[in-house]
């Protein structure tokens, strides 16, 4: 069952150099209880997508088209007050740097109890008991003592756990996690990813996991959406896409990763650079860097075509007759 659907979303930023097209029409759906990975390199629009869903875009950004449907309601049509209710209560967001998202002036306990009070989420026991239960749920040691500490007294991993506890306080249905482990060490990253999987399993929370790391997607997500220059190039079930990537960009990304056993050999590279957001792109955005580019790729944007029921990719190669 779909809980969140992004339909033909377009987002522009106005800058002194002209309009920057950050999102050029993307579609995907998050199924209830799934972890969906939104993956791509710098500037592909993955974070802008997350912020668009929360309607937390900067002032110079404008959503120029499309819908964001959460349980049959288009979030883009809600009043600010109604959106405020959705944010936190139904959809929560966690960020790369928890130190800037937590309030440095209040203890962890005060911040969580604030959210519990504001959202009046149903639960048993007093505010303090419920806050401590949340801290225990996210694996923070000694919750009673944690209630009284300030964010700066915690390590990076503990801050991210506190941030997750805070986002759970309102009992949301969806969590948008924007690079939640990028600032953390690998052993701490493993703890946080394990926690996200546990929350998904035990609370049936749906997670949109925004990341640049294909390894994290492979280990954590059920579904994946690969973005390039503000468009979806490939999406589907994680097993299908990693076992048999179809789009030349996805293939290039996977081939560029160093792997055990390849020591000292040259890695495969993707020639060229990502197009500027200032450009209007008529054809496939990846065409200038693609090894298989054809005339049509430069003229007309390829639609997403089915590889199989669990896997779609936007490339004209899929429409070519196969040799074998």
């Amino acid at each position, binding site marked *: 069952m779909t809980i969140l659907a992004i339909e033909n979303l377009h987002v522009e930023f106005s800058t002194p150099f002209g309009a920057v097209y950050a999102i050029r029409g993307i579609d995907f759906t998050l199924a209830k209880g799934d972890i969906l990975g939104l993956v791509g*390199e*710098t500037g592909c629009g993955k974070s802008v997508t997350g912020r668009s869903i929360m309607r937390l875009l900067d002032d110079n950004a404008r959503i120029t088209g499309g819908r964001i449907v959460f349980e049959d309601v288009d979030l883009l049509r809600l009043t600010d007050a109604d959106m405020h209710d959705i944010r936190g209560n139904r959809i929560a967001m966690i960020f790369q740097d928890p130190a800037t998202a937590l309030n440095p002036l209040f203890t962890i306990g005060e911040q969580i109890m604030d959210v519990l009070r504001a959202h009046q989420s149903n639960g048993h026991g007093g505010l303090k008991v419920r806050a401590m239960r949340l801290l225990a749920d996210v694996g923070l*040691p000694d919750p009673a003592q944690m209630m009284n500490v300030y964010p700066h007294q915690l*390590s*990076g*991993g*503990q801050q991210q756990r506190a941030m997750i506890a805070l986002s759970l306080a309102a009992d949301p249905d969806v969590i948008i996690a924007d690079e939640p482990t990028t600032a953390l*060490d*690998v*052993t*701490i*990253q*493993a*703890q946080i*990813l*394990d926690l996200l999987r546990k929350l998904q399993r035990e609370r049936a929370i749906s997670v949109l996991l925004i990341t*640049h*790391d*294909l*390894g*994290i*997607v*492979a*280990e*954590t997500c059920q579904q994946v959406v690969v973005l390039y220059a503000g468009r979806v190039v490939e999406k589907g079930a*994680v*097993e299908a896409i*990693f*076992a048999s990537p179809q789009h030349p960009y996805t293939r*290039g*990304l*996977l081939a*560029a*990763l*160093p*792997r*055990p056993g*390849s*020591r*000292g050999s*040259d*890695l*495969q*590279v*993707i020639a060229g*650079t990502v197009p500027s957001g200032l450009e209007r792109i008529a054809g496939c955005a990846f065409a200038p860097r693609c090894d298989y580019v054809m005339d049509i790729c430069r003229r007309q944007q390829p639609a997403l075509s089915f590889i199989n029921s669990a896997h779609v990719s936007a490339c004209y190669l899929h429409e070519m007759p196969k040799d074998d």
Partner: protein
Amino acid sequence: MTEPLLSVHDLSMVYLRRAGLFGRRAQPIRALNGVNFTVGAGETLGIVGESGCGKSTLARCLLRLLRPSGGGIQFDGEDLLALKNEDMRMMRQRMQMVLQNPFSSLNPRLNGFELVAEPLRTHTMMSRKEMVDRVVTLLAEVGLSAEFMSRHPHQLSGGQAQRIALARALALNPDFIVLDEPTSALDVSVQAQIINLLLGLQRQRGLTYLFITHDLSVVQHISDRIAVMYLGKIVEETSSEAIFANPQHPYTQALLSSTPVPDPAAKRQRIILPGSVPSATNPPAGCAFHTRCPQVMDICRMRYPASRLVARNHRVSCHLYEESA
């Protein structure tokens, strides 16, 4: 094996952190605590570890940007710590460093030519004409055209800026380069380009690298040998192949199993370590890893395990292997 180009023995570095009112209390931080290794000419040694393990302090001590508190560093037969400042300045022509973020290591006011020519200006008597020729050659070597001479850092992408930083490091024909997380700030496709460039330069110039990173998949690709650090000590050191095929130290095993692999079909045993790295101001007694180790024994809390050879070219500091020895 011939003499190593670089050998480090029992290196330690203690910082004093001022604490308390007006900094009257000084807290010692043990960033390096008896580090030993060697790097042969033309070889790449990878140093892997998480934040606070001392890997960047190690880099700074090697180039004597920091004065180590104890131990010794031999570079090509010279005792670096005994060199006079002027002699060390000459020695740095042969030892260079490339940092993680080129935008903070490159002066934003200088253009590509000035950035790459700066070491030539301070260390050689080249004429302007010679310098231009040399800079053009260096830029070509790192895959940039001559037009980058007029670009300033803010006009460069992350990958291009890192290439400028490399050209600058190569300007004086060094033998040895310390690479401190050189690809960590880059996207995957750009990271691959820089790794290929580093491998190519090493082949052509016979460079020796010390490659510092937290990323195991990158380090195994570029290194001949890998040393794993935890809280100021090397806990395991062996060939790049053996670290992956046969990791011995429980920390190395956990580090490997925590590194995400881009293959959902890989069914791996996940070792998730509890807690985080203890503070270097107050390191645990015995083996510093005992607070998180899944296989901790009583002795680990009391005594630091000596470094043992468990196989050819494979050193581990762990009581698990002392028992069997």
